[in-house]
């Protein structure tokens, strides 16, 4: 007898309403959606209880990509763990890197140089554009608009080229370091960003012309998956999902971090709270992000990008390592454990406005270079937990539209 731990069936949670259990439910059928399914959100599972085409109840199940990120965080140093944070929300890895090191620098009490702040702002906003392109592209793809998806993917390739010129990797960049970034921004990258800024609005207009007033798309997404403002706050929604329901909370304006306080941009809100509103909020957010990048790239302050060597918390750049003795000594000491960072035995939480919502890390330090506990607060978990509430009463074909609009990324969901 082969012992298999195939997870074919799960207990459904007890019926909250005893009458429904007593009612004759022969006409209800169960559909298992996932964990392998065509919608581009990878491994999540939904067990849907349907009456004909109408969804009576949905039981989401996650954990099909749980890799033990938080346990790894207890074994890797701060600079090593940034490679793992890349693999969380893999649609916008730069934002995760910025979030992780923002949390680490909050714990360590490091103040970044102005140049570093502006560079991180630029890459975080480019990551936001990249994420929204894929999220809206996935909504388009799941509702049948393949061209929209391909346009979005092509623009993401342009952003990948920018990141590759900047740090060598298309995505999964691991670009930030404690107190700075791994490579400084070069004039070539600035030129590429300028070209992108010039060309992107036209593509965005093309994409909008395809879907925003498209009768089919509007019918499929308007009024579908409505989330009211009070429910959004009660269920912990953040990011575009919350803003589309009328919760005007954006950490870039509420708790400004990096260089956001210096730029002129607006946060995008809607009141309808349905899939169409979330789509529109993301499209408009891309334009606002482009505004931020356009302002930032023209005003990058000169000066060092990494925190100075005296503070001994970031590695000196290679030029100094190979040519000065102080650089070599400093690099050696920082590479050996316990010689570089001064980590307090304290705990702190810091969050940024990631494309998906509030992405924060609660880090417990214990004096070592390794975190004692690195907890990631994932926006996707709360968004996915809301799914049954949003889908009740809608039809089977709305399931993909709602799932796409929530932008649930399985790796961030499961960690």
């Amino acid at each position, binding site marked *: 007898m082969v012992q298999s731990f195939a997870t*074919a069936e*799960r207990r459904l949670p007890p019926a909250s309403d005893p009458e429904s259990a007593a009612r004759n439910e022969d006409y209800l059928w169960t559909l298992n959606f996932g964990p392998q399914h065509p919608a581009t959100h990878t491994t999540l599972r939904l067990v849907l209880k349907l009456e004909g085409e109408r969804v009576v109840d949905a039981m989401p199940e996650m954990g099909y990509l749980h890799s033990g990120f938080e*346990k790894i965080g207890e074994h890797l140093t701060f600079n090593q763990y940034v490679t793992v944070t890349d693999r969380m929300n*893999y649609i916008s890895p730069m934002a995760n890197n910025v979030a992780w090191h923002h949390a680490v620098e909050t714990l360590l009490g490091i103040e970044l140089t102005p140049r570093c702040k502006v560079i991180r702002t630029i890459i975080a906003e480019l990551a936001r554009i990249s994420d929204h392109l894929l999220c809206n592209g996935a909504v388009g793809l799941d509702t049948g608009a393949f061209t929209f998806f391909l346009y979005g993917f092509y623009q993401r390739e342009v952003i990948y080229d920018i990141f590759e010129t900047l740090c060598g990797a298309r995505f*999964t960049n691991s670009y930030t370091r404690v107190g700075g970034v791994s490579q400084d921004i070069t004039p070539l990258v600035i030129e590429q960003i300028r070209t992108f800024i010039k060309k992107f609005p036209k593509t965005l207009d093309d994409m909008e012309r395809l879907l925003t007033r498209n009768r089919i798309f509007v019918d499929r997404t308007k009024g579908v998956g409505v989330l009211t403002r009070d429910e959004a706050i009660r269920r912990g929604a953040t990011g575009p999902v919350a803003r589309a329901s009328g919760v005007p909370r954006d950490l870039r304006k509420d708790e400004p971090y990096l260089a956001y306080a210096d730029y002129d941009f607006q946060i995008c809100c809607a009141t309808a709270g349905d899939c169409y509103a979330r789509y529109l909020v993301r499209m408009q957010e891309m334009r606002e992000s482009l505004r931020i990048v356009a302002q930032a790239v023209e005003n990058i302050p000169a000066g060092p990008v990494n925190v100075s060597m005296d503070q001994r918390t970031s590695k000196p750049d290679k030029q100094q390592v190979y040519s000065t003795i102080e650089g070599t000594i400093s690099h050696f000491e920082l590479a050996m454990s316990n010689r570089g960072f001064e980590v307090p035995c304290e705990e702190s939480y810091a969050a940024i406005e990631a494309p998906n919502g509030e992405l924060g890390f609660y880090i417990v330090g214990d004096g070592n270079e390794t975190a004692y506990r690195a907890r990631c607060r994932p926006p996707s978990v709360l968004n996915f937990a809301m799914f049954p509430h949003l889908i009740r009463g809608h039809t089977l074909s709305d399931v993909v539209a709602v799932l796409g609009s929530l932008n649930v990324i*399985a790796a961030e969901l499961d960690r």
Partner: protein
Amino acid sequence: MAVITGSGKLELPENVVVSRLDALANWCRKNSLWPMPFATACCGIELMATGAAKHDLARFGAEVFRFSPRQCDLMIVAGRVVMKMLPVLQRIWQQMHEPKWCISMGACASTGGVFDTYAVVQGVDRFIPVDMYVPGCPPRPEQLIQAIIDLQDKIQREGTISGREFDTAARQLRKRALVEITAPLSIDASRNPVLQRELAAEALSGRS
């Protein structure tokens, strides 16, 4: 009409092709691979990018990304496979029809990658037969395309019509577990509904 000339060579008119039937079948199979994207994580995004406009996978015949295992012949395991997902992977592999091939894309699918943790399977080739490994985290689209081209060469070289000649069993069973099981496993079999059903069915059939 074919004519044997004086020197013993076979002369063929233009409209006759001579080939082994196997080679012809392999040529058809390799140029129309239907991938089954088992995309779990970041490699899934690179898989999508490979299928998108810039690095077009359709040029190599692998355009049709069908999500139903019954319609596919190439499974691309893109991304890490965790222990909750592995039975799903095995079931999908068993649902695919022969001839079928498997590409293990990325470091996580090949060896577990960065994630040597309690939940991640250290290489899917421990549990399903893999034909091609693509290193990288994630591999660039060009690397995946190279893997598909290499797989096409493999299919052309080694295929038979029945497609059952790949002997990966020895290689699979040779790989030892990274962790020696010394303590009892933290798995409570009484809470596995599928196993309990199987046991109950066996007990019932044993009794009757």
